[in-house]
């Protein structure tokens, strides 16, 4: 009953229990919430997951107010908001999605900013930023990945926001770090990122479809072909840019045909992938000449 425990602890906090006890309590909650996320990721019913994730994110934020430097809570909020944007807002209401991606990014930045070198280089140029990334190690991969994920998600939707777009080299540098230190993290997430970036740029503007394909294949190898979002991005970017309609259709069919139980711990992202695959196949006439 994680929810009950959480609420109880929150009430305890609100009642004005001594500060250190409150902090201790919240710290122990981190672990519960961590398991809570597992429960979310196993959920196949999208509306249920949407409601539950939404209310728990607010709860998380309340906890963060009481313990503003707690890395675990900040990480959960970062991942939670970005996941919410991707799963429940991006295809329905882009303005909401942009807002949530930014929250995801900003909670992640709060974790990363605990590193002094990063904090001072964050608003500097790309070279200084890249230099600062060297002060991180493999254990920082999750924070870097989810921060970059939220940031990239925002840039991708806010294509008219030039100031945001100009920051893309920084996001690339963070994902490059993930790629070098833990390429298998989050189902080969960094490979999926670079596959999408290189695959969606038109070859006329320097897109690299062959490199994109390699990244997608490596992501699929990392997740055993079971993380269905891989096929969705493969279809949406590489298959469209190379005008390979049979590949586009077979990738999306693969998503449609896959059981949600192939990867129980990723039932939710896979259910979201199925939704995105359906939306994408409805738009086939926008991508290929009839």
């Amino acid at each position, binding site marked *: 009953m994680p929810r009950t425990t959480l609420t109880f602890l929150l009430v305890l906090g609100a009642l004005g229990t001594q500060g250190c006890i409150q902090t201790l309590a919240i710290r122990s909650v981190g672990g519960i919430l961590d398991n809570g996320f597992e429960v979310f990721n196993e959920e196949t019913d999208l509306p249920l997951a949407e409601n539950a994730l939404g209310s728990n994110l607010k709860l998380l934020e309340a906890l963060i107010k009481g313990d503003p430097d707690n890395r675990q809570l900040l990480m959960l909020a970062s991942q939670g908001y970005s996941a919410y944007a991707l799963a429940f807002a991006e295809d329905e209401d882009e303005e909401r999605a942009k807002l949530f991606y930014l929250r995801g990014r900003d909670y992640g930045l709060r974790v990363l900013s605990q590193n002094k070198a990063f904090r001072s280089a964050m608003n500097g140029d790309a070279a200084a930023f890249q230099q600062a990334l060297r002060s991180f190690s493999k254990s920082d991969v999750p924070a870097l990945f989810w921060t970059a994920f939220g940031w990239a998600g925002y840039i991708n939707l806010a294509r008219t926001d030039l100031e945001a777009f*100009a920051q893309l080299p920084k996001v690339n540098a963070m994902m490059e770090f993930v790629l070098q230190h833990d390429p298998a993290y989050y189902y080969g997430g960094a490979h999926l990122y670079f596959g999408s970036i290189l695959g969606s740029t*038109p070859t006329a503007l320097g897109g690299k479809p062959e490199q994109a394909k390699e990244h997608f294949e490596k992501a699929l190898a990392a997740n055993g072909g079971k993380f269905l979002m891989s096929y969705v991005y493969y279809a949406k970017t590489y298959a469209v840019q190379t005008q390979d309609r049979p590949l586009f259709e077979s990738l999306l069919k693969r998503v449609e045909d896959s059981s949600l139980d192939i990867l129980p711990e990723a039932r939710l992202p896979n259910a979201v992938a199925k939704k995105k695959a359906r939306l994408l196949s409805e738009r086939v006439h926008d991508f290929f000449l009839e």
Partner: protein
Amino acid sequence: MKTICLTALLALILLSHSTAQQYTIKFATIAPEKTTWYNVMKEYDAAVRKESGGRLGFQIYAGGVLGDEKAVLRKIRVGQLHAGGFTGVAMGEIAPRVRILDTPFLFRNYDEVDHIYKQFEKDFEQAFQQGGFVLLGWAEVGFVHVFTNTPVNKPDDLKRIKLWTWEGDPVAETAFRALGISPIPVAFPDVLTSLQTGLIDAFYTPPYAAIQLQWHTRAKYMIETPISDAAGAVLIAKSYFDKLPADLQEILLRNGRQYLSKITRLAREDNRKAIEQIQKAGLTIQKVDEKELPLYIEAGKRARRMLVGRLYTEEFLTSVEKAVEDFRKNSKASQ
């Protein structure tokens, strides 16, 4: 009761018939979805659909999925597509004389640009028609700046840089030769890689594009004085346009002028903002010494002469140059 039902049914049939789209213009652009360019094209599409009662609309292929401009041009010529967004190199294949707009140091500000576009509109429209296209509207790319990795204080400094030139673009190549530079031709998609390997260390592009292509990450300086103003336009195959009923032609053209000029306006705004971002990214905006300016302007004149016969007639060049001079004098006089 029966009559009412019948009338309603008839009205429904008529309505569904009149809203069935009869003409779908297949249009391709390199601009990705969600960009200003794409968003305004969607507004154009919505306006056309509304005014035509759903008889006319666009099918937009964004993000260069159907290839670069030259590929789009080929697809239009064989009838697979009907319209496209084009810039200099492809426009030059359709209507060579239009490329006069891209020549170096012709314009100093957007007022001059607007004036010449307006004064010579009929000439350019006619040139497009001779090339088999109808102009739906200009969609300017904007002032082009040179980006370098070493400071450029005078034209001679340009001779020491390894400047890229777009393979197969006679205007850029001639412009640089007139400045005494031997540029290095590289295909457009390979520019970023060539900047990384050091094959080239300088390039030219509008500031907005520099950020979109991330080329700005490979430069230390941007020269403030633009070398040219890159033209752009949305063109539709004349063969397709001629088949449209007159009322749809009118709707298409009127809205085209309106929405595409909005793209031009927003592109200018984006280029201005891009320069701010470029400075934030650590690049220095390099001012050109007033004393050196005439050297560039003279080089521009020489370059324009070198293209006579290849892209336009001497007579046309003289008339455009004179119109710019006159406008400049008049605007100075009125100040």
